[in-house]
């Protein structure tokens, strides 16, 4: 059994909200971010947190991420996101979900074999458009 059900890498507004909801639902969540202040801010609500630049295999392995863990990439930084996705690929992680900030970012993630990708601004825009059309 994996140590964590879900690992969230990148704890910005997107990642933090995601991780908090999952933790609240009783999942074993690991939250990772480079920024110590961000991680410290979440320390009261999430049990498993790590401060790390999780871009390479060794770090990911040390964090306890196994192929069975579902990994969510929450960072908008394209380079960090793609490098992490590549490393996760090499580790043989079955399921990687990610957030993309731009179309190219989306394309690149897709080619790296990421399972599911969302583009928050675009998705939110589309969903608002749907709402408007239904009025």
């Amino acid at each position, binding site marked *: 059994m994996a140590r964590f059900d879900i690992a969230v890498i990148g704890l910005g507004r997107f990642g933090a909200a995601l991780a908090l909801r999952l933790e609240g639902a009783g999942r074993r969540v690991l939250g990772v971010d480079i920024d*110590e202040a961000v991680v*410290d801010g979440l320390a009261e609500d999430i049990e498993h947190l790590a*401060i790390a*630049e999780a871009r390479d295999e060794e*770090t990911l392995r*040390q964090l306890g991420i196994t192929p069975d863990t579902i990994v969510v990439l929450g960072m908008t930084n394209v380079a960090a996101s793609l490098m992490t996705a590549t490393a996760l690929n090499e580790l043989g992680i079955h399921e990687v979900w990610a957030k993309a900030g731009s179309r190219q970012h989306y394309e690149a993630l897709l080619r790296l074999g990421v399972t599911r990708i969302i583009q928050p601004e675009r998705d939110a825009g589309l969903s608002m458009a749907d709402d408007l059309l239904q009025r």
Partner: protein
Amino acid sequence: MAQGTMNTHLLNRLVANPARTVMMGFATVIALGTLALWTPLAAETGESTDVLTALFTATSATCVTGLTTVDTATHWSTFGEVTILALIQIGGLGVMSAATLLVMVIGRRLAAPANVLTSAESRAIFHRTPGDVVLGIVWFTLAVEVATTLALSVRLRVAYHDGWSEALYSGLFHAISAFNNAGFALQADSAVPWVEDPWMCVPIMASVMVGGLGFPVWWEVLRHWRQQFRRWTTHARIVLWGSLVLWIGGAGALAAFEWRNEDTLGPLGTGGKFLAAAFQSVAARTAGFNSIDIGALHEESLLLLDGLMFIGGGNAGTAGGIKVSTFALLGFVIWAELRGEPSVRVLRRRLSPENMRQALTVVLLGVGLVGGSTAILLVVTPFTLDAVLFEAISAFGTVGMSTGITGRLPPSGEVILIGMMFLGRLGPLTLGAALALRHRPRRFEVPHERVLVG
């Protein structure tokens, strides 16, 4: 070139597992020493000594402690005494060399590659070959021991009417014993006959001090003397100042405590009182000679000596204990905490958190070890707490002073002391090295949280 490769190879083997290398070396020497002392040849009576006594004496000599269950002069034959002397010398040189080499290795490992050139300038000892350093230690040892032998022998010949050969032998024995901080004496009452004789006490004290400061400090002192250079390392300054404070403070306190004690300082003249107090203060860290009767000291004096013995001397010297620098580091930590400073400053340099943790680990493990063995000794012996505690610390600090209970311990008590001497000699050294060398690269960190303290 060939020698260079061999040295590097040797260094690498030592580095691979320094703790095990050093421990195995010591265990082997002790085993050989035990065998030698066990033979009938080693005893005055010509009958073989029991194994436990042989083991105790061999351990005590090799770990340069000086605790004895039998009287050195009367029990052992000349062969036995020379064996003890050899063990002391091997033990002393072994500790100094091993520790100095470990210091070098740690220094090299911890210095970032980019800083190698600058550190070559200021901390020359890190950039010597191991062979050079060991050779330096041997020369240094020889020089101090020869000088002390001469001083003692001449005095013994002139003032105590010993024959030349006898005076030379006694002088040599005590010189080696003093420099290596072993505290073995050829008299049952140690240095008591010389209590008011500065010509005997001062050379012994000087020799103990020199041996106890540690080779890295002397290396720096010698370099300073030969060529003026920028600054002293923080380590050397801590050890020198710390030792000075402990010597003077210890002597002053001891003189004050014992001034009127009829069985110790009381009968002596004023000069003699100060000489004896200074001698005892120096010997407590960690030579183990005594010029006054330790068993007759007041309890407060015993406690004072307990403290001095536990702290011990300088690193990579012949002294034992947790070392002056370790003790001082914790002092600096406390000072910084009391003042609410964000980091610990030591003589205008910042102390790394690892360094703090190492000091804390060594000290607390030492305290735990002494506490545990004291408890066991209390159970297996009929003696009081102050005597037993003194004995345990004396063994742990490889001091060798005793309130006089060593010879009356049951076998189980002797075994405990053997273990304490071994751990006390090698524990802080190998533990310190292991801690400093241990490098677990962790690629992540976890969030902060405070736990309530105090």
